[in-house]
């Protein structure tokens, strides 16, 4: 039976929203991988730590969840700076950064479990029930907010990297550090800033996760595969890449669920990844 236009439209919207979350989670990962040569697996654990902090500040501290952005994001920026300083101090190679940050992921997961237990935590706020109606379609506020955040951060980062001196210096340092340094670029300081920004993005993603999802420590690992696919399809170090690739994956998955079968959806992201890698391979 042919799916109704409403079903298809709602599925596309759903795909865009989940894709925005893939993009938001992938932004910091893509920047640190592409520009700092660090494959930061701990990015996912940080996002969930951000989500739990948002839960705590909102449910116990009584703060509005959106206000927690102003606490979580700066705190994570500092964490990112510290983490990069440590990795740089010991000259961790890209491959080793994968191992080190996996270890950090396990530590953060244990920390979360120690504080909040492995049981489920759900942040109940009035935002959770807010939704807009556009014709026959529904737009949930929390997911729309995630889309806005992802778009603002991705486009903003792209614009800074593309059109400002700071961004040009960052790109130059990522391209060839010693040559950039010869032109007066403080590579170390820029790397610290970039790492802090990436971690801050994880914090923002955490706030969005807490707004839309029930939390459990083990869910850290549920996002890794698909977000890695979004980052690789989008191109390492390209701030718009994860959002666009995330949306493509999200919409493809959602349409697969709506038209064929939900069980087929996980095949989509990795099939797309293989396809993109094959096409790219031919080009080079």
């Amino acid at each position, binding site marked *: 039976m042919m*799916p*109704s236009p*409403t*079903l298809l439209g*709602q*599925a596309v*919207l*759903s*795909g865009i*929203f*989940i894709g925005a979350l893939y993009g938001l989670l992938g932004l910091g990962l893509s920047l640190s991988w592409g520009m700092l040569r660090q494959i930061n697996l701990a990015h996912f654990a940080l996002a969930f730590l951000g989500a739990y902090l948002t839960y705590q500040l909102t449910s116990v501290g009584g703060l509005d969840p959106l206000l927690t952005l102003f606490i979580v994001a700066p705190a994570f920026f500092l964490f990112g700076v510290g983490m990069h300083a440590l990795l740089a101090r010991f000259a961790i190679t890209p491959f080793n950064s994968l191992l080190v940050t996996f270890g950090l992921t396990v530590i953060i*997961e*244990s920390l979360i*479990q120690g504080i*909040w*237990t*492995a*049981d*489920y*935590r*759900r942040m*109940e706020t009035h935002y959770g*029930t807010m*939704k807009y*109606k556009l014709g026959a379609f*529904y737009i*949930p506020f929390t*997911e729309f907010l995630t889309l806005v955040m992802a778009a603002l951060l991705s486009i903003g980062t792209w614009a800074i990297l593309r059109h400002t001196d700071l961004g040009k210096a960052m790109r130059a340092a990522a391209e060839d550090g010693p040559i950039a340094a010869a032109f007066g670029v403080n590579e170390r300081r820029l790397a610290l800033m970039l790492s802090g920004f990436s971690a801050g993005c994880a914090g923002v993603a955490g706030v969005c996760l807490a707004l839309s*999802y*029930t939390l*459990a*420590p*083990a*869910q850290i690992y*549920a*996002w890794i595969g*698909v977000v890695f696919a979004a980052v690789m399809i989008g191109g390492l170090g390209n701030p718009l890449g994860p959002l666009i690739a995330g949306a493509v994956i*999200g919409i493809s*998955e*959602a*349409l697969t*669920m*709506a038209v064929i*079968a*939900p*069980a087929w*959806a*996980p095949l989509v992201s990795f099939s797309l990844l293989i396809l993109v890698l094959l096409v790219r391979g031919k080009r080079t």
Partner: protein
Amino acid sequence: MKLVTRLAGAALGLLVGLGLAQPANAQSTQPIRIGSTLALTGPLSATALIHKLVGEIYVEQLNAKGGLLGRKVEWIVKDDQSKPDVARTIYEQLITVDKVDLLLGPYATGNIVAAMGVAQRYNKILVHHTLGIPNLAKYDMQFPAWSVGANPETTVPNTVFDALAATGKPMKTIAVVTSKFPSVFYMSEGARAVAKQRGFQEVLFLEWEFGNRDYGPIASRVKDAKPDFVWVGAIGLEGNMLAEAMKKIDYTPPMQFHMYPAPGPMAKSPDTQNALAASIFEQHAPFTSNAVAAEFVKIYNDRAAKANLPDTAVETQAAASYSAWQVLTAAVNATKGLDDKAMSDWLKKNQVDTIQGKLRFDRQNNFGDDLMKVKQVQNGQWVTVWPKDWAAPGAKLIVP
């Protein structure tokens, strides 16, 4: 010379006697060690926490009453990380390295089946609490403490459909949407067959991979299908995520049943009011008319709050866990020993009083009766609504 020989013989006899008596004495004062694993980390850890808490409470209660066979009981519980292969290794270790006296099953079907293989290799009795696919329990000395019966894929859906039929508001169409998590999928397939037999028209069947993140399109398909009743084969948070996704498109099915929900989040969610689920125990009368159950509920509520668990109520998981301990200790006490074969033989011939009722193990694969009831979320709490004689005082199934 004879005297010297006699004295030497007596001294030797005394020494040998003491020497032999010493280990026996020491053994009788040493604790009985019960080994098990639980998914303390990994995707199953939220529920496994309940089993850890229950085990700690039970062992404390047991030791306060003098332990087992006059010896204290020590529970050695290790983390299987929610992985069957890890569970298999640790059960091997518990038997060969820790040399535990008894085993108790881990949490969830996959890990139980893994542990069962090890128990079988060493001829150890294995009492377990959460095996969802009885067909997989082929070992002769395994005993289920979760009273789902030998064919829950048939009996549980029938109980649910009986409950719906008794409301006098017949439902004609059904949507079966299910996770591919093995024990859940098994029940959903059974529900499809039973629904067909009972004259339901299946308007939608969907399956998704365990770990699915986006429930929006599934919710839209359910809404499009307009079923009278939705059978949600979901485990843990999956059911909540689907219900939330349906609410986001302004849709709530007329009636919905969730197979293995996360009980706390589902009871508290505004999206799942009047949702149904299966249960063996809820903390209200008549379940709590049993004095042991009432005491356990009180202690569990208190300890769960202290352990910072968001949901402190006793329900199926905690009750199944407590029952497993009751079954194991009943077998030890009845046989007055730790002989696995003797305990196994005794359990096959006798029934055990547990907080979920009398359990028997004399049917297919040592399973007994299906004691599952139907519960419903009403005013943010789970209450049993079917069968009527197990319903919470004043409660009945609400059909919008």
